[in-house]
């Protein structure tokens, strides 16, 4: 993916780091309410104009991902054309649905915590942000607060899913706190956004 910057090129103490921290806070909120811990914020003119967290369980709608909620919030105050000057900070790579939606909405650029090899639409599985399309492409930067984003997901997936038909006991599971980014299998350590 040509437009992907290396994580080291974006410093965590920069303004990008600040906004990703806010996205992580939304992810924490999702975790606290039993949703898959993915959070995001939309930033327009250095200001957070929309924020979202995964909301699929409560809404009983599998398409209610963080990105859609953030955009809906922004559009209550701003016209759609403002999205062309807006950046997205999201803890986990947008899924294919959201990657396509962001392109239709004309997002300016997307900052991602960690890749999603199961559903990711900006490099994880497909490259919707840069494929041939009737809308302009957008650049993606991956790796900002990657460990924090992964830890959030791990915290979620060591929980038992009481709603599952056959909940799997996970009492003996401990939170994995090691990171091995050289190992490609690292990505399999957590589950996809669903």
């Amino acid at each position: 993916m040509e437009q992907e910057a290396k994580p080291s090129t974006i410093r965590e103490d920069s303004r990008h780091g600040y906004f990703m921290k806010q996205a992580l806070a939304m992810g924490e909120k999702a975790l606290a309410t039993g949703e898959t811990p993915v959070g995001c914020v939309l930033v327009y003119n250095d200001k957070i104009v929309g924020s979202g967290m995964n909301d699929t369980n409560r809404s009983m709608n599998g398409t209610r991902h963080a990105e859609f909620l953030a955009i809906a919030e922004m559009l209550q105050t701003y016209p759609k054309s403002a999205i062309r000057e807006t950046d997205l900070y999201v803890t986990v790579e947008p899924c294919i649905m959201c990657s396509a939606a962001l392109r239709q909405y004309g997002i300016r650029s997307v900052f991602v915590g960690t890749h999603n090899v199961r559903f990711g639409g900006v490099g994880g599985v497909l490259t919707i942000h840069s494929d041939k399309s009737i809308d302009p492409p957008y650049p993606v930067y991956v790796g900002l607060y990657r460990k924090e984003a992964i830890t959030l997901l791990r915290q979620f997936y060591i929980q038992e899913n009481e709603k599952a038909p056959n909940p799997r006991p996970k009492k003996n599971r401990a939170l994995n706190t090691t990171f091995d980014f050289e190992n490609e299998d690292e990505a399999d350590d957590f589950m996809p956004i669903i």
Partner: protein
Amino acid sequence: MDASTHGSPAASMKYVVEAIQPLDGYVVPIKSIQEVNPPEGYDDAYVAEVDIKSASRVIKALDASFPRDASALPLNHLRRFCKRENLPEPVRQYVDTTYPQKTSMAPSIFVLLGISLPDMEGVRALLEPFIPVPRPRSRASQEPQETASTPSTPEQSPELLIFRTKIPIYPPSSTEVANLWSQSLWPVTFNPAASRSTVAPNPQTLNRDQKSIEPRAGYYVSLAREVALEAKQSGRGRGVGAVIVDPRIEAQIDEKAWEEGYDSRERWPQAVVAVAGDCRFARAEAGGPSQSDRHDNVGPNPACETYNSDYEGGPDLHALMRAVELVARSRREAPENETDHAAMACQPVVHTDPQLSKPHQLSALERYFLYDVGSHVIDDESTSYRPSPDTSCQVSPRKRKFAAPNPEAAAESLDALAETELPPSTSLPAPPPPPLASLPPPPQEANGESEGRLPTSRIRSRAEGGYLCTSLDVYLSHEPCICCCMGLLLSRFRAVIYPRAGRLKSGGLASGPIEAQKAVLANGDANNNTNTNGSQPGEDREYYGLHWRKELNWRALGFEFVEDEADENFPPEEVAFHA
């Protein structure tokens, strides 16, 4: 609104729906990307000629001395033996010219040894005893011309015939490809039961579901177009429509019609659990007027004529996304969910689709299928449609497992629905449904006005086992955009169907150009055919085949509806947009 004003739009919608004519045509499964662009690769493999009678001993000897490398590509699709007369034509010509057949020899057969032979001398030594030998004298003497043609060769020891030939290293993707390779390279077999479920749907499942979808597909696609037309004429959106159908209600309608001996067609609308039209121009951004507010709302919105992303509203206002949200909303408002909902009131669900927040903003057709079909068209008793999961379990799971190919779906539709929804036939007046005059008053108008309780919805609630859009089918007027494609996977639809005439370059379901799907089979070289962009109008696009990607966790069956004749009311779209 009183009962009469409510009744008349429902009645007029009833006539609209009754007037919908099924399209004539058929459905075609959309191939997966891997089927259209199968991994292709060739290599040279060794082939040797052995005595036909020794074939099984040759295999035993080879397997014992040269066990297959477990890390190598499996070559199970290649036949191990081939008779000289069955060799593919190019191979046979080579063999016949290089090693002419000697009629004095015992019948032989060609054995495929493998791509690499680490120990060529060892192989030669191993096969030495199995080289075809001259026929026994007694049999040869019965053929007079043979003695003349082979007078002096018997004393020469026969030599092992061994050569290399090109073989396909991946299994064929279809019987057509298998035949092609068998005629040009080496005999191969196509095994549809091989574990390739990530590459393509199980053929039995695909076949079964295609058969259940085909008879009504023309009707539901036609209905999707009616919904599309309504959306376009309202000025609120582009002409795109979505129809969500419950196959279990379809099966139940068919069964009942068969039992009672009437045409099930008049009840097909009952299997529709929700319809939704596009309303991308209706979003009021920043509290201002929407595109459709600026328009006089009579006839198509002028924004339809071009593609300007500022006017497009967003994919959450697309038909499929709205239909999915209508199903979700129905669940959220189910009585059993009320307490949960109160607890959530401090943090209300964000309606990303502003048009869904107030029931009166639904279109006439959307309202009709959400509120009216259940009470007006189905028999009265069916308003108590509440199949409990418990009743479906009266038959033991084990028994159900062997009773039907898809035990869960079949059991619930045949057992649970039959018991709970179908009233006893004695109390049931014969169809067709009672005339409008005798209809009961419309139910719970007040509820419909407040947050849109769906009193007679056929959308199964959570308690009834309903979960997202699991086991539902969606019919669309157009090929959905990439966003909606993934949305339908995340919603767990069973199948998606759209008319081939509704393909869009921005779509995410088609897996290749229409013509190339045949051309692939004609010359077996998929890559050359499917990657030619822009060679034909409308094909300057990416092909995703998102319904069935091996990379993704969720998959749905995908079908294109091919009309026998083009419908002049729905010409191919001239403007590229996201449906």
